[in-house]
């Protein structure tokens, strides 16, 4: 099932290469749609949990569904597995990815009218390849496989920005590539080090107990060497102990903090956090609209997912140690992103900086190690995954007509294009965090969670207050934006613009519905699936820390 989801887009990409040019986009949309449909078959598994999520995820961290595993690269004590599976963290992100990919694919439907419209086959093939890479990251549970998919996504994205992007596309593309690769080489070092350290742990335990292996806590297996299994690393007490107390081979640092930082930088670049965010405005602004949607909607979530899948479960002690640092970075991202957004006159850049601000909540929510914080972070990822593609698409719609993105040159668009204006209001309010829309829940829970953490961290209330101030800043720039672009008197230069077409509405309405439904029914749409896993991650983290 998961393999099908992951590799359907590849199939589509190959088809795109052979079908006649006029049909390429149809094939691509069908492939993305098929992937979406197949991914929806995952939902029933999670619905069975109903009101009691513990039924689904109560068996401890690492209760997986739709598991597929096979040995891929196997040595004597060395197995890199083809290991896919989803739990409450991966599942919503898979759905998000397929939905946003499908909508972005639809948004590419007018490819022929783009300024750079050569290479239609290449565009859609790379697009679908990108989808494979993203889905692969969210479902792979073997670290090696995870890394491979992480890198698979890199090159298509590079070309999608570099070939079909805006005027500074080359710069933006290489910057994106370089930042991500810089992060992922650190991840590669961590990959090698964690494998070897887990092997050392197993061998130590084997020698201590003179058993021929170490029983795995969550699957019927006996470990005799190192492992790449992400769940195993998190739940196996032998490995955990060794990770927490061991030293690195090189210069004898403590193992956990070093690896945590390596992984953290890798994921934080993707998230992005403030000192490492500079690729994001460039990439978002230069990328074509559908790619901006993917970038904001899905790619940024890979960073947050990385924290939840690797950093926190595997290195809980380090997470506790670095909590203050992470919270500070999170708060700075929130405030700095919001202030930057406020200063922008480029419509797309504003949305891009708002992403930095919003993802800061994810980091803050994770940093404080509370249930509400984790839940809020997860929800914020999904909410942002819905609202920011919508914002980017809204920008794209108007850019196609006006061919500029200067906020100050717009005005009164609601009157000119009422359907578009309505959608824009929903989208931007969702991003703002208006109650009853999706953005509110995540930010509110994160702030709540930060307050709750005051028993553990004395600085938590300060962070909560600052994060709440971020909400106000967000409201400021978004309302100001709406006033400048959509309200006010109708301008002559935009008078003849056609309202959003059926296709455009077809792309916006699902996102708008999602934004509203997630805002009204957060439990049924998100929390029911995620809380169990998140709580178990948290329980695991807290247990390890105390």
């Amino acid at each position, binding site marked *: 099932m998961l393999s099908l989801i992951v590799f359907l887009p590849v199939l589509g990409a190959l088809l795109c290469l052979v079908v006649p040019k006029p049909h390429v986009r149809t094939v691509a949309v069908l492939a993305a749609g098929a992937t979406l449909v197949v991914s929806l078959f995952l939902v029933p598994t999670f619905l069975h949990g109903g009101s009691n999520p513990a039924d689904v995820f109560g068996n401890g961290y690492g209760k997986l569904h739709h598991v597929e595993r096979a*040995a*891929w*690269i*196997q*040595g*004597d*004590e*060395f197995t890199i597995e083809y290991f896919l599976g989803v739990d409450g963290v991966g599942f919503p992100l898979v759905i998000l990815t397929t939905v946003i990919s499908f909508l972005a694919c639809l948004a590419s439907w007018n490819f022929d009218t783009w300024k750079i419209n*050569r*290479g239609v086959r*290449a565009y859609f093939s790379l697009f679908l390849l990108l989808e494979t890479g993203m889905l692969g990251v969210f479902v792979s549970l073997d670290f090696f496989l995870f*890394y*491979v998919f992480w*890198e*698979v996504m*890199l*090159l298509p994205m590079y*070309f999608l920005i*570099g*070939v079909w992007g805006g005027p500074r*596309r*080359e710069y933006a*593309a*290489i910057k994106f*590539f*370089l930042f991500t*690769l*810089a992060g992922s*080489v*650190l991840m*590669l*070092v961590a990959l*090698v*080090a964690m*494998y*070897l*350290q887990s*092997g*050392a742990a197993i*061998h*130590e335990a084997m020698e201590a107990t003179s058993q021929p292996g170490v029983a795995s806590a969550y699957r019927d297996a006996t470990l005799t*060497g*190192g492992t790449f299994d992400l769940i195993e690393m998190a739940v196996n007490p032998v490995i955990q102990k060794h990770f927490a107390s061991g030293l*690195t*081979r*090189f*210069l004898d640092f403590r193992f956990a903090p070093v690896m945590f930082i390596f992984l953290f930088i890798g994921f934080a670049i993707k998230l992005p956090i403030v000192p490492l965010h500079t690729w994001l405005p460039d990439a978002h602004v230069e990328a074509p609209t559908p790619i901006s949607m993917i970038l904001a909607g899905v790619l940024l979530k890979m960073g947050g997912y990385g924290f939840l899948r690797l950093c926190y479960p595997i290195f809980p002690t380090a997470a506790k140690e670095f909590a203050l640092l992470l919270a500070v970075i999170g708060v700075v991202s929130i405030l700095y992103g919001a202030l930057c957004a406020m200063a922008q006159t480029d419509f797309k850049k504003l949305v891009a900086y708002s992403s930095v601000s919003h993802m800061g909540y994810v980091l803050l929510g994770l940093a404080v190690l509370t249930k509400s914080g984790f839940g809020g972070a997860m929800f914020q990822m999904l909410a942002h995954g819905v609202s920011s593609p919508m914002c980017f698409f809204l920008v794209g719609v108007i850019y196609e007509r006006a061919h500029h993105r200067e906020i100050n040159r717009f005005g009164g668009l609601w009157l000119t294009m009422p359907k578009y204006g309505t959608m824009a209001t929903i989208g931007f309010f969702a991003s703002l965090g208006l109650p009853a829309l999706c953005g509110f829940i995540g930010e509110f829970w994160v702030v709540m969670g930060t307050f709750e953490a005051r028993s553990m961290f004395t600085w938590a209330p300060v962070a909560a207050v600052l994060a709440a101030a971020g909400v106000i800043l967000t409201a400021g720039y978004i309302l100001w934006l709406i006033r400048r672009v959509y309200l006010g008197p109708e301008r002559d230069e935009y008078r003849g613009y056609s309202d959003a077409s059926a296709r455009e509405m077809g792309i916006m309405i699902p996102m708008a519905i999602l934004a509203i439904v997630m805002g009204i029914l957060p439990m049924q749409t998100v929390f029911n699936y995620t809380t169990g896993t998140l709580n178990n991650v948290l329980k695991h983290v807290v247990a390890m820390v105390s």
Partner: protein
Amino acid sequence: MDSAVNTIMSGSEPIGRQLLLLSPLLALVATLLAVVVAPLFAGRGVRPVVTVVLVGLVVTFLAVLRVTGEVAHAGAAGLLAERLSGMLIVDNLSLGYMFILLVFLVGVMWLWWTGSAPTEQDAPEFFILLLGSALGMAMMASSTNLLFIVVAMETASLSSYAIVGFDKKNPVGAEASLKYVVFGGISAAIMLYGISLLYGLCGSLDVAVVARYTLEALQPGGANVIVLTLGLLCFLAGIAFKMSAVPFHFWCPDAFEGAKIEVTTWLSVASKAAGLILLARLALTFCAAAGNQTAIPLLLPLAWVVGILATITCTYGNFCAYKQQSVKRLLAYSSIAHAGYMMMAVTVFVYVDPQRAPTPLPGIGALLTYVVIYLFMNLGAFGVTGLVAWETGSDKLEAFTGLARRAPWLAVPMVICLVSLVGLPPLAGFIGKWWILLALGATGGTLGWLLVLVMVLNTLISLFYYMRIVVRMGLHDTEAGPVRPPVRGVVLVNVCAAALIALFVLAYPLKDLTDRFAQALYLPVVSATQDGKQAVVSGLPLVSDGYVENRRPSE
């Protein structure tokens, strides 16, 4: 006279069996002679020569297969007896290199067939020199005696000098071969002086004895430490020249740019790999000599020397590649960088764990994997460069502008090869780096982890210049019309690109194969005999158990 015959037979092996073990090399020599004779019957045309060479290569391949079976049958314990009069050893490592060499020869011939064959007047000479250098490299990979190493290296080098300047009318080629021969002559002379010192100190030209003596004499406070180090460094300089490691790399960019593209491709993989295999064999011999635990710390400085050389080599190669305008030259610098990565694999033998005997086997396995993958990457990248150069008349970066539109069947494999050279998944280049990283990390030493960091940082640096070509091909465009390369060339580069994807997915079978070729290697153990001379008395093969043991992460 009888005594002479007896000594000939003294390998304790019947002469027939010795000939069997030598049959791959003999088949290569026979092919070479057949190429000389063939024009007498069939004219100097391209076709008969290529036919003869192909038949010869097939025969050689069969011979290698046969000998592989023989060696596998005899097992590791039999390797010492099969040592051919103390000069050569035919073991898995040399056979593995022979396989790589043959596959690569066919690839290079294919490239030649696409590009140069139509205008070639001197095909027999070209193949004599090509096969001659192949013969020299094959001998390098199996020599166990300093004298034979010298002869083998000179065979490889002298043919290479000539083949670089093969296109006589090309002034750049003439200059390249001149520089190559001058630097090559200097390095060979320096190496010989080093060998003479080693001979004086160790009293033997046998590498095993030299290793044994070196480890004895390198004990702190030894009188001969400096002279011995000098001799070893001079000797290493000669090998470093073949690998184009950095202080000895001057010839490499020039020779690569000046030579015909097939020759460049050939040298960029085969000659470097031969040097690396030789280095790996030396590491193996030293590890065998340090079999007793006390000598292990003495190996560390040797590993450091190679490690530092590797670091300088790959960093320098990557930085220099950045400002190149000629793609051929850029790839030449990239090949220097890759030689650095591969040298890192050779440093893998000293472990932090004192319980673990030094063994370079994980490194040799990783090295062989890397060479196999590197072969396809370079053949593909140089192949595309050659096809573009033949069609447009230029190998400059500008010639690649807009290639994605002008010739997608060249641009796509080129992107795949370049990204693989960077070392990103899902391409085989990553797998090559991965095994080296893992082997380095598993040593658990400071050196290992330093090299891990050096390697990943260099990956980052290398991104810049490889992407320059990608940017030119994909992101820029020009008015120039489409490029229509010959179909066989397109097939070649696409086969290479497909191989890179396939080798990623099939990483395990590849590693399994190369590991098998990195096992049960010839490991001489030396002990002093009564008259004060040292002799190789027994072979201690590393069985697979030992290998597993050593792969285990250290405590």
